[in-house]
């Protein structure tokens, strides 16, 4: 509606809610508010009876937390139904108009539950004044009353065997909330439709298995997710990539995990490169300060403090595999260290390797906030 009143397409009613436009005045929209997804009607229209203008606004409102919590007290059998007729009013598909709850439903809810709120120092929501709703049976005004078999609990509740509703976050939380303790009975992962981590017995959603993100503390959910051949290595997302492509400074796994953790520092600070699935030491011949800087940067360790070319006296040095600096590397092309190395297997003339010390870039200081003597 361009002006304050609707065009004739809006059935001439004098005010539109914020979202109506001259071109689209259909008011009904599917219900998406989780706590009201099991109603006998599926369409709603805004603004609702609390003055909210959208389901998103309603979903973060105080009332959308208050009513489900109040339902747990079993103060009134049809409280959840009433709450939803107020939060997401029914929209009649024919008239595109809201259908209010009947006044008697509002009065019954308020009479039974207002005192419970009083106990915890809360008030009945002001905007749900029952006089705004029509009496049932009045001519040419329809209003809503619950069917006897209407759901007393919302989809955000767990229904105890006794019929009581408790919030689903209380299911299997280690405390009995149902009067018959049924919320703590079948608490295995399987009963809750979840997958149980063999190690720590935590429950995770099935869609988290083999998705590249370890969720179990022992990462069992990411084990046995693919079968790579002997000359392939497994990506984090379980694709298989030929080992010769591993840590070659180009992405081959779609999640680029073949280029993760290619460079590390051993205990003694020696630079170790993991290439084609094997560990290499870097021959010091041809190493420059640029190489040190790039190496610290790619490990997220900030900047180089010191670089030493050391004789590798470890026993395994004899069998050590060497990688050599590629002399044709130019400083202008930004590639990670594993891309600057080549000529595997050749011996290292100097028999020296690189020991590197990196340090975090300056962070977390605030010189402008220093104390100034007065």
């Amino acid at each position, binding site marked *: 509606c361009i002006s304050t009143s609707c065009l004739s397409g809006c059935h001439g009613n004098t005010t539109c809610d914020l979202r109506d436009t001259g071109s689209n005045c259909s008011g009904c929209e599917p219900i998406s508010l989780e706590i009201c997804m099991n109603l006998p009607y599926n369409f709603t229209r805004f603004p609702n009876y609390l003055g909210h203008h959208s389901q998103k606004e309603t979903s*973060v*409102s*105080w009332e959308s*937390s*208050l009513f*489900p*919590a109040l339902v747990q007290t079993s103060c009134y059998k049809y409280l959840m139904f009433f709450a939803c007729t107020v939060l997401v009013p029914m929209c009649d598909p024919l008239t595109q108009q809201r259908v209010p709850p009947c006044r008697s439903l509002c009065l019954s809810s308020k009479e039974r539950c207002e005192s419970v709120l009083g106990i915890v120092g*809360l008030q009945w929501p002001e905007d749900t004044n029952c006089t705004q709703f029509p009496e049932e049976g009045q001519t040419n005004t329809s209003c809503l009353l619950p069917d006897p078999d209407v759901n007393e609990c919302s989809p*955000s509740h767990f229904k105890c065997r006794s019929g009581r509703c408790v*919030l689903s*976050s*209380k299911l299997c939380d280690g405390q009995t909330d149902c009067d018959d303790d049924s919320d703590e009975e079948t608490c295995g992962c399987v009963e809750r439709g979840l997958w149980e981590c063999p190690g720590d017995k935590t429950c995770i959603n099935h869609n988290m298995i083999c998705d590249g*993100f370890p969720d179990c503390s022992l990462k069992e959910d990411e084990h046995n997710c693919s079968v790579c051949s002997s000359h392939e290595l497994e990506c984090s997302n379980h694709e298989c990539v030929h080992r010769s492509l591993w840590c070659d*400074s*180009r*992405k081959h796994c779609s999640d*680029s995990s073949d*280029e*993760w953790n290619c460079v590390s520092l051993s205990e003694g600070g020696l630079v170790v490169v993991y290439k084609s699935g094997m560990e290499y030491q870097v021959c010091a011949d041809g190493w420059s300060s640029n190489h040190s800087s790039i190496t610290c*940067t*790619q490990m*997220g360790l900030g900047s180089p403090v010191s670089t030493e070319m050391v004789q590798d006296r470890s026993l395994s040095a004899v069998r050590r595999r060497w990688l050599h600096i590629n002399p044709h590397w130019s400083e202008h092309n*930004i*590639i*990670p260290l594993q891309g600057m190395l080549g000529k595997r297997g050749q011996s290292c003339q100097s028999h020296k390797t690189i020991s590197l010390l990196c340090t*975090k*870039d*300056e*962070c*977390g*200081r*605030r*010189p*402008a*906030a220093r104390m100034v003597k007065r």
Partner: protein
Amino acid sequence: ILGGRTSRPGRWPWQCSLQSDPSGHICGCVLIGRKWALTVAHCFEGRESADVWKVVLGINNLDHPSPYMQTRQVKSIIVHSRYNRAVVDYDISVVELESEVEVTSYVRPICLPNHGQLPKPDKYCHITGWGHVGNRMPFKLQEGEVRIISVSQCQSYFDMKTITSRMLCAGYEAGTIDSCMGDSGGPLVCEEDDGRWSLYGLTSWGSVCFSKFLGPGVYANVTHFTEWIKRQIYLRTFHL
């Protein structure tokens, strides 16, 4: 920030304002490197393109450009691939700036905590932002001191939600000092024993801050994402 106070220029040199025309300030953000900032993923809902964003640093009064102010266009936005908007889980993004900032006394990166390093419950830390103060949106950066709250205690405030290991809670039972709309993406920082400050949380969600329901604020748990953050920076730096 509810219940906070106006901060002085230079007190939080890592704080930045994530802006998009014509609205101006949309969310907070945090400088973690010369070309890198962090914010939360939900700030980009409906505005996923990097072109519409810029980052403003070294500023205290949004309405009053300062001589220390630096502005950078956003080059790329990396939203966590597991960000879940329904339950606001994995609510974190890495923001790459078009060019490096100049590190000054008023523009400085914050330290990231080591992987698994969590602040102790009941430790006092600070939140900052230009978000709602309860009855208006302030021009000047606000700061507030909040207490870290254990996950189990925090869960008791939020019956309808699940507090995951990707979340961190801080504030007070009465909600007296809390973050609010417009603070999202801003820092929750704690001072370390060596006097440096580390980033432990990014303002993410909570109850409707100026409603009757009170309780703590919920922050993206930066410690959980330290490796992920470093990896995103590595992959973008080397065009992988």
